[in-house]
């Protein structure tokens, strides 16, 4: 077993270096999590890697990849209402997929406890938007914890899991990209001797797990009551704290404060360390629900309070409302510009922002001059040997030669990179699985321009099937190219339904046949002439056609081959 795995499961307290995603797993082990389900998406896949590195016989957590985020959430919910502490994790936009399920959960008693971990992505480092899921926490009536560092990830998860078990309610644990991927030294506690009781304890007296029509209201009242218990908890929570590293003396006769959260809190502390200004910082770890008493007392102790938040104006609006209701006279300052509603708040940006309000504390700095040198961009690109490359090359040629006004629709996956140079295939993109639906819409009333859409094999199962079924039912004039590489490549080679690593492989051609796809062809992506013939035939065919362009992910293929060779070498040296 690796040293990393050894450390991860060691029973006693220890101190070690860990990234946020891995620290989360140690906290899961110390909290007694029994079930965890997920769908891969950056910035969270390393959570799974840290669980899976623990040998199965020593792993107390049952972990599995689900078909999509909604199923993952349901899996964790099912485990929780059976009495087992559960975790579900996925990336920011994964919560959109999970939402139809997730929005009910707070009304139901999650008796084992349940933590919904999301990797939000301020700065859109690896996502199609930078949506602020703190809105969604409010919609779901779920308390929100926001760690700003790996060590806070560890300590706040322990608190969140405990609270979730106590109140039998799901908790939203909102990490962000640079919390997930940051590394620091963390003091871990011991793993208690849990008995990991698998007794199925689900119990329903009446309609308490059946939120339909009038049954909703008593359940909703219960959710409100739980939220107000969290509101009380927030007052004494170690996650909500006032920091005054330079003392609390007034600056120029004014007592100044900042209310902030997550990474921006550390950014403001760094700025204060540089400037030496004495400002009090109320750092909120639990950002929903807010405790009005906590907010009002902080506001009243200061003449001016800046609300420094990353992304949308959520704390700003709620704190202003609390201040209004409580006749607070403190001057509340907020970010002035729409540019401040985007991107991350690194220290330099916080300094620049605060210097506009408190120039005595944060003297305006000259803008850094643009470097004179021009540096070539480096776009992400498909790997050497990638089957998608070959397919895009062939389709680009076909379209340029025979269908120059065709519309191509991209989907999410490695093949999204086909939209960039040099292929420029797939010029409209929304989200996982959108391509068939969008292509269907583009085909309505359109007998002039051909429509071609793409999908990968993991996405095929994740959210692709409903759109495909629609195109089959309406026999849309669309050509779907399934780019099958037998893995979830973009996020680091997680298995999926057709990869053959979980249970019996569900074969994509058989699924399509069973759905009634009449035009169906399949060819290796490197057989370019044949691929072009199939796609030409499909585009000329009236109605829905599917061409599967298959080729194993070469990155995975080569790694697997290398691993097999190393294993053989080891076995041979043992035999000798």
């Amino acid at each position, binding site marked *: 077993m690796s040293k990393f795995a050894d450390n991860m499961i060691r029973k006693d307290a220890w101190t070690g*270096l860990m*990234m946020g995603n891995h620290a989360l797993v140690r906290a899961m082990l110390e909290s007694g999590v029994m079930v965890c389900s997920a769908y891969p998406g*950056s910035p969270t896949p390393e959570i799974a890697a840290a669980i899976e590195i623990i040998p199965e016989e020593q792993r107390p957590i049952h972990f599995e990849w689900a078909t999509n985020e909604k199923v993952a959430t349901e899996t964790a919910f099912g485990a929780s209402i059976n009495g087992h502490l559960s975790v579900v994790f996925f990336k920011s936009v994964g919560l959109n997929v999970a939402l139809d399920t997730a929005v009910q959960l707070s009304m139901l008693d999650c008796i084992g406890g349940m933590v919904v971990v999301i990797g939000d992505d301020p700065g859109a*480092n*690896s996502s199609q938007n930078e949506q602020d899921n703190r809105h969604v926490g409010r919609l779901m009536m779920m308390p929100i914890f926001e760690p700003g560092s790996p060590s806070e990830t560890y300590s706040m998860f322990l608190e969140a899991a405990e609270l979730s078990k106590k109140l039998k309610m799901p908790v939203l644990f909102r990490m962000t*990209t*640079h919390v997930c*991927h*940051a*590394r*620091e*030294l963390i003091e871990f506690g011991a793993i208690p001797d849990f008995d990991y009781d698998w007794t199925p304890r689900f119990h329903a007296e009446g309609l308490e797990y059946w939120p339909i029509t009038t049954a909703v209201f008593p359940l909703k009242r219960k959710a409100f009551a739980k939220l107000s218990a969290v509101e009380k908890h927030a007052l004494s929570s170690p996650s909500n704290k006032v920091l005054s590293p330079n003392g609390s003396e007034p600056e120029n006769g004014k007592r100044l404060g900042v209310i902030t959260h997550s*990474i921006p809190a*550390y*950014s403001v*502390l*760094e700025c204060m*360390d540089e400037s030496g200004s004495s400002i009090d910082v109320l750092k909120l770890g639990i950002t929903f629900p807010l405790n009005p008493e906590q907010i009002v007392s902080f506001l009243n102790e200061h003449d001016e309070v800046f609300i420094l938040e990353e992304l949308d104006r959520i704390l700003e609006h709620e704190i202003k409302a609390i201040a209004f209701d409580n006749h607070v006279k403190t001057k509340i300052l907020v970010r002035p510009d729409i540019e401040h509603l985007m991107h991350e708040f*690194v*220290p*330099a940006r916080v300094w620049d922002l605060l210097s506009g309000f408190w120039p005595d504390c944060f003297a305006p700095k000259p803008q*850094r001059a643009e*470097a*004179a*040198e*021009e*540096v*070539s*961009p*480096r*776009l*992400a*690109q*498909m*790997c050497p040997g990638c089957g998608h490359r070959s397919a895009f090359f062939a389709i680009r040629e076909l379209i340029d030669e025979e269908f120059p006004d065709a519309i191509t629709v991209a989907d999410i996956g*490695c093949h999204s*990179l086909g939209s*960039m*140079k*040099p292929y420029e295939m797939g010029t409209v993109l929304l989200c996982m699985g959108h391509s068939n639906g969008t292509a269907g819409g583009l085909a309505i009333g359109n007998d002039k321009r051909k429509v071609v859409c793409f999908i990968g094999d993991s996405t095929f199962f994740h959210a692709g099937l409903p759109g495909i079924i629609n195109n089959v039912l309406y026999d849309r004039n669309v050509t779907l190219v399934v780019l099958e590489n037998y893995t979830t490549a*973009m996020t*680091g080679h997680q298995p999926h339904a057709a990869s053959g690593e979980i249970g019996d492989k569900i074969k994509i051609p058989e699924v399509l046949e069973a759905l009634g796809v009449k035009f169906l062809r399949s060819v290796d992506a490197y057989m370019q002439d044949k691929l072009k013939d199939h796609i030409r035939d499909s585009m000329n065919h009236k109605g829905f056609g599917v061409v599967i362009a298959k080729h194993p992910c070469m990155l995975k293929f080569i790694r697997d081959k290398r691993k097999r060779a*190393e294993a053989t070498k080891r076995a041979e040296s043992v035999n000798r």
Partner: protein
Amino acid sequence: MKSYNIFISGVGGQGIGLLAEVLIQSCLAAGYAVLGVDTHGLAQRGGIVVSHLRIGNKDKLFTPRITPGEADLIVGLERLEAYRGIVNYMRDGGTCIYYDAEQQPIHVRMGLSQYPSHEELEKAVAERHGKVERVFIEDLPDVRMQNTAVLGRIASFELVEGLTGDIIREQLLEISPSSAKDANLKVFEQASAARA
């Protein structure tokens, strides 16, 4: 102390994670506090991978990301990314240690932009009054060992007081898989000895 900032950059697959891990563990072993963060976005597929390290006193480190123009050391595993690191992150008087490999991006292959030469890189460093160390090993047994070579060269300088070659060597051996220890050690020593 003011933090010492190391900006490490290369292309997906070059082993930046391992390089950063060895440096972080070495700094911890030398008695410093460290914060680190990797930023890679969509970069697993031939894109840019960057790792930020900040070294210093525990009560003076708050965030792991380096402010542009404030890196003391640029570590590059490839020439264009070393160049980008210098242009965007090197502080006045900083140091660059880079492996002279060349991985051309699409824009260069399509003739839309230029790939920098070693001379251009030196010029960019000179404009920032810095120093540059080019690492290149003629008979490197495996391209996946470029990161080890760069580590060896870093180890030949005591960039921060107490961050000695012995500490870095020890951490490299600690982290290397047992099958690669001997080969890594050899490249490490070779690159260390080849210091200009």
